[in-house]
């Protein structure tokens, strides 16, 4: 930069920047699909982590908010996409805008509160630049910029998230202007999302605010746990289940016939279709009755299989880091905060039409089980922290990890969308999660990503490492 009159002849270019993705074939190889192994560098390496922010979090559709959190113009919440701080705000025309929460002047964080109602706009603390709820620069302080002819207010604003779309009340954002539509990104996985989002005609809402906590683990441990790890439940959660249920985790009498894992584009769900196994762990008999009843009524909307899934022992993750538990009615995001840390944000979802006392029991039930002080979350957190931390040992992190449970269990007959495997005690979804991860490392374009022969079911014939 310079200061004489010949410089400054070109005005600042304040257009938002959306960088192109790259290719990281070396990192993709850290996932060994042949041997069903994952190299521990995916959990520890700073360069791998930076590549994840660029290849995955700057491209994929990421969960932002539920419609019910920001019903009116000016209502907003602050969240993250990867490590980027984001303001999500309802516009006057009822659409939703999302913006990077960093002032284009010196970069200061503009909005500091977690959420608010009917905001008039956002004013930066540093020099008083003021932004509308549409992200545009409205004005400045000091009475000087208006005399500066090179200052073009209309070209300056909080950088917008390139795309914002929603699916049945869930609002997602994508930084990549070239990302396919949200529905294409989700693919047939919407079939499984509807278990939670569309089991009742009134739709859903989030209630009771958010519970936030930090866990010293890599973000992929919780994501892979929710995408398809019921195996840990009978061991890790034995004591919690004992305390609440008076017995171990029960996958139902028809496990062999009903339990499955399904995966599409790395999104995955495992379910035992036992009707109320997850709901039961919240500890309220009224909730169990409510779900039995709901499940009966939902057969028309969802069909037999999904009606059994509403409260069943099950878990799910939408790639990359948005998880939910049917039955326990919690949605959560594992925001990355470095290779060895996450910020976890947890919400409770209920049907809008549910009676008030049922909503209240879900809210309390989630706090008692899946919050930082909840019986199950505590069990999980410690495992993920040590699975991450031990890799500080140089020799330790050279050692292989085993992801081969359920190789050869592909179910080509089952009439369900996705790549379906028999049995929920399986690591098929986890393998496909890491295959998707590797694809994001390997491919620099959406054409390759969306036409993957590995993570997109090919007439149900294709499968990872079978």
């Amino acid at each position: 930069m310079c200061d004489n009159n010949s410089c400054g002849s070109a005005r600042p270019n304040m257009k938002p920047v959306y960088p192109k993705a790259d290719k990281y074939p070396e990192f993709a190889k850290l996932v060994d699909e042949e041997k069903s192994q994952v190299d521990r560098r995916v959990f520890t390496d700073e360069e791998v982590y930076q590549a994840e922010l660029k290849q995955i979090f700057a491209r994929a559709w990421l969960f932002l908010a539920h419609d019910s959190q920001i019903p009116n113009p000016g209502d907003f919440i602050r969240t993250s996409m990867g490590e980027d701080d984001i303001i999500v705000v309802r516009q006057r025309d009822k659409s939703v805008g999302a913006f990077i929460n960093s002032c284009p002047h010196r970069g200061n964080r503009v909005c500091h509160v977690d959420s608010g109602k009917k905001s008039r706009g956002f004013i930066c603390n540093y020099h008083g630049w003021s932004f509308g709820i549409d992200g545009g620069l409205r004005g400045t302080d000091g009475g000087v910029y208006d005399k500066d002819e090179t200052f073009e207010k209309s070209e300056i604003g909080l950088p917008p998230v390139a795309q914002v779309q929603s699916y049945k009340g869930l609002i997602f954002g994508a930084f990549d202007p070239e990302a396919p539509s949200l529905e294409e990104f989700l693919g047939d996985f919407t079939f499984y999302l509807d278990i939670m989002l569309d089991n009742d005609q009134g739709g859903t809402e989030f209630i009771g605010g958010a519970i936030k906590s930090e866990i010293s683990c890599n973000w992929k441990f919780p994501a892979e746990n929710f995408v398809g790890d019921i195996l840990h439940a009978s061991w890790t959660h034995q004591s919690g289940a004992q305390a609440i249920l008076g017995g171990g985790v029960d996958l139902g009498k028809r496990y062999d016939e009903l339990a499955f894992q399904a995966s599409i584009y790395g999104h995955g769900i495992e379910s035992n279709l036992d009707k109320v196994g997850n709901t039961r762990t919240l500890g309220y008999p009224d909730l169990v009755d409510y779900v039995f009843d709901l499940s009966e009524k939902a057969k028309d909307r969802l069909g037999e299989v999904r009606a059994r899934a509403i409260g069943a022992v099950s878990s799910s993750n939408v790639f990359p880091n948005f998880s939910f538990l049917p039955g326990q009615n919690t949605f959560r995001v594992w925001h990355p905060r470095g290779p060895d840390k996450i910020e976890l944000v947890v919400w409770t979802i209920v049907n809008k039409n549910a009676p008030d006392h049922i909503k209240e029991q879900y809210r309390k039930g989630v706090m008692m089980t899946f919050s930082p002080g909840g019986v199950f979350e505590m069990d999980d957190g410690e495992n993920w922290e040590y699975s991450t931390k031990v890799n500080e040992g140089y020799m330790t992190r050279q050692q292989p990890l085993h992801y081969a449970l359920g190789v050869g269990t592909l179910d080509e007959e089952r009439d369900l969308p996705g790549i379906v495997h028999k049995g929920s005690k399986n690591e098929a979804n986890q393998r496909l999660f890491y295959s998707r991860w590797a694809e994001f490392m390997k491919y620099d374009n959406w054409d390759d990503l969306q036409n993957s022969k590995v993570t997109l079911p090919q007439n149900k014939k294709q499968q990872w490492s079978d």
Partner: protein
Amino acid sequence: MSMIEICDSSQIIEGEITKITVDGIPPIAVSRYEGGIFVFPDTCPHADESLSEGWVEDGRIICGVHFAEFEFETGEVHNRPIGCPNLTFFKCEDRNGKVFAILNEEKTDV
């Protein structure tokens, strides 16, 4: 300064702020509140931003930049950014559908 014609009164809409430029003087703004016509400088007393880009809410003119709020009638400022004076209104009247005002600039400097 004498009374000058600034616009047709039909141009002034209840609850909206309209910017008017008259040659040779700083931009002015007009609004209607509970039927009455109000004429005032368009430039916010706080930091030289345009009040016509703000809006009217609960009997107050809101500056859209740092959200200073000025009461109709008195011009008293609320939610005041530091150093922001009150707003001053110009004397005006509606003569057969034309609005005339005395644009005494000194009155706006507090």
